[in-house]
């Protein structure tokens, strides 16, 4: 949080996204702040419904059609949230790209893969038709699709799930963005394919010096791929820090819970750990810490007072009243 502002590519400040259902306001994202530095991979972790995807969509203005988005999202010094859709067109897809969770439904079934790549190039580059085609082939080749030149005329349904995810990456990277928002890009894929896609993303990010915000619910993925991590719970950030620090010694009991649920070097037939309980409904958030009802070390203060996200060490922040004892079990 405290890094000098000019070093960070994207600065998200107090991002709050509210949806309205039957006259009730539901805060899907509640005042989150984080920075993304050039070329780094930031993991945004949390359970389903914690607001990770909505946060990403809010950043590039895809969520505001469904609710209100407040706060600031600074991109190269300009607040993206104040821009209209039309003004955002030159940022979306060219400077900031996004890939989605479901490769089966995120490509238009009626258009050829070639056209879906080329329309990005047409929107953001001056390339003429043959040049766009050549670039499309190059992109499919880069993301590892065999026989790229013969596949431009194919439709999405002629590709497998993993291949479609590669196509989506090719589309997102077409105009060499500086930031990629990746919304659970591997969740819908087979485990073997997951790893391939992650490795592909990492190597592409490195070659293009592209930053990634990687949304996932899997701390194992974070450990493999990310530089820094931000943990979300019930629409708020509960812990941020470098992956090494956070995984070595979490400062929030929720992070600890997530960490313990990653199956790792356990003997066979050991029941997997899961954080007891379920996340609170957005319209029934507890008054104090949102995690308190599920927390193993809850005290009276947790029920009445919501702990703010505060810095407790170098580049480590936690929203817990007892950050020093929260992660003891791992470090011990």
């Amino acid at each position: 949080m405290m890094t000098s502002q000019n070093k960070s590519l994207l600065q998200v400040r107090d991002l709050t996204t509210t949806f309205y259902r039957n006259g009730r306001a539901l805060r899907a994202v509640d005042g989150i702040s984080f920075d993304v530095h050039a070329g780094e991979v930031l993991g945004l972790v949390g359970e389903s419904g914690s607001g990770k995807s909505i946060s990403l969509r809010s950043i590039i203005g895809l969520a505001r059609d469904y609710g209100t988005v407040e706060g600031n999202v600074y991109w190269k010094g300009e607040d993206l949230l104040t821009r209209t859709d039309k003004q955002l067109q030159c940022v979306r897809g060219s400077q900031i790209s996004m890939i989605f969770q479901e490769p089966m439904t995120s490509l238009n079934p009626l258009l050829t893969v070639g056209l879906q790549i080329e329309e990005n190039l047409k929107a953001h580059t001056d390339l003429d038709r043959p040049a766009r085609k050549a670039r499309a082939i190059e992109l499919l080749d880069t993301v590892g699709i065999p026989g790229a030149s013969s596949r431009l005329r194919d439709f999405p349904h002629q590709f497998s799930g993993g291949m479609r995810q590669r196509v989506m990456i090719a589309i997102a990277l077409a105009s060499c963005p500086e930031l990629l928002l990746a919304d659970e890009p591997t969740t819908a894929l087979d485990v073997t394919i997951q790893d391939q896609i992650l490795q592909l993303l990492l190597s592409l990010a490195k070659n293009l010096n592209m930053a990634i915000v990687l949304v996932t619910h899997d701390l194992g993925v974070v450990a493999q791929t990310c530089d820094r991590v931000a943990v979300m719970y019930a629409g708020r950030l509960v812990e941020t820090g470098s992956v090494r620090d956070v995984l070595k010694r979490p400062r929030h009991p929720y992070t600890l819970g997530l960490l313990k649920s990653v199956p790792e070097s356990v003997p066979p037939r050991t029941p997997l750990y899961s954080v007891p309980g379920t996340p609170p409904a957005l319209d029934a958030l507890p008054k104090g810490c949102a995690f308190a009802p599920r927390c193993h070390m809850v005290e009276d203060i947790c029920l009445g007072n919501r702990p703010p996200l505060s810095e407790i060490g170098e580049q480590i922040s936690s929203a817990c009243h007892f950050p020093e004892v929260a992660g003891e079990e791992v470090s011990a």
Partner: protein
Amino acid sequence: MSSLSYLVSRLMQIIPTFLLVMVVIFLLVRMLPGDPAIAMADAKATEAQLELIRQKLGLNEPLVMQFLYFVKNTLSGDMGTSILLKAPVLEVIAERIPVTAFLTLYAVCLSILIAGPLAFVAALNKNGGLDIAIRTGFQIGLSTPVFYIGLLLLTFLAASLGLFPVGGYGATFLQRLHHLILPALTVALYTSAIIMRNLRSAVIEVLDADYVQFARSKGLSRSVILGRHVLRNAMISTVTLLGLSIGALMSGTLVTETVFAVPGLGRLMLEAIFARDYPLIQGLTLTFAVMVSLVFLFTDMVQAWLDPRLRLS
């Protein structure tokens, strides 16, 4: 290549459909109450005269034979002689087909022109004032009987204001456009209501689809997103519905053509039914069946053109 094989397989499906239609037509007409011989002869005809007419029409033959004759004659283009008009059925029908085809096509074009833009406007203003106004308007259109709308249009626009002719069918293309606008509009109001509702919800659904969100995240302009990504996908289900409603629309010409005195197949059908003109009824029913099948075939072709998953699977 695979598009061609799709077309061929689709054409093959039509053959059994037609056979079935011919059986149904044949049986239905024979199950209608009343004796066509009596209808043909005048009231004072003797039993001997009636018998002569029955023999001439082949009504005394066994049913199976009658059916085989019917199939054989139909395939060779002979659908008998109209009892009412005393002319070959094929000739009578061929003369009227262009009128109904023109009216139907006209109505379809009008429905698309009315429903398409309004559906988009309604979907983009979902639950807004404009959306509610459009939906309410069409709801009224849907719940009013076709003939009643026709009579209203006729009374006000044609009879009182004299803007349009009260009936008939012009000679040139432009005259026809002018003559048929009220009947076409009458039919179109109903179809467009159906299309509008379907297209509106399809557009709303597609706007939320992942691929549209992804298209937006690519920084495409609004017109490209709506035209290329939303419209085409939303059209798929609407095209099917449009095809189905053209079928219904053709049977609707019975009423419309009668109300507006348009000399088309619909009005002819009504006259044939009242006169118990068996050959003509059979010929007309078959004609309607052929036209509806062709419309369905065309609808399927449009869908295959829109959706590569149909074409290439």
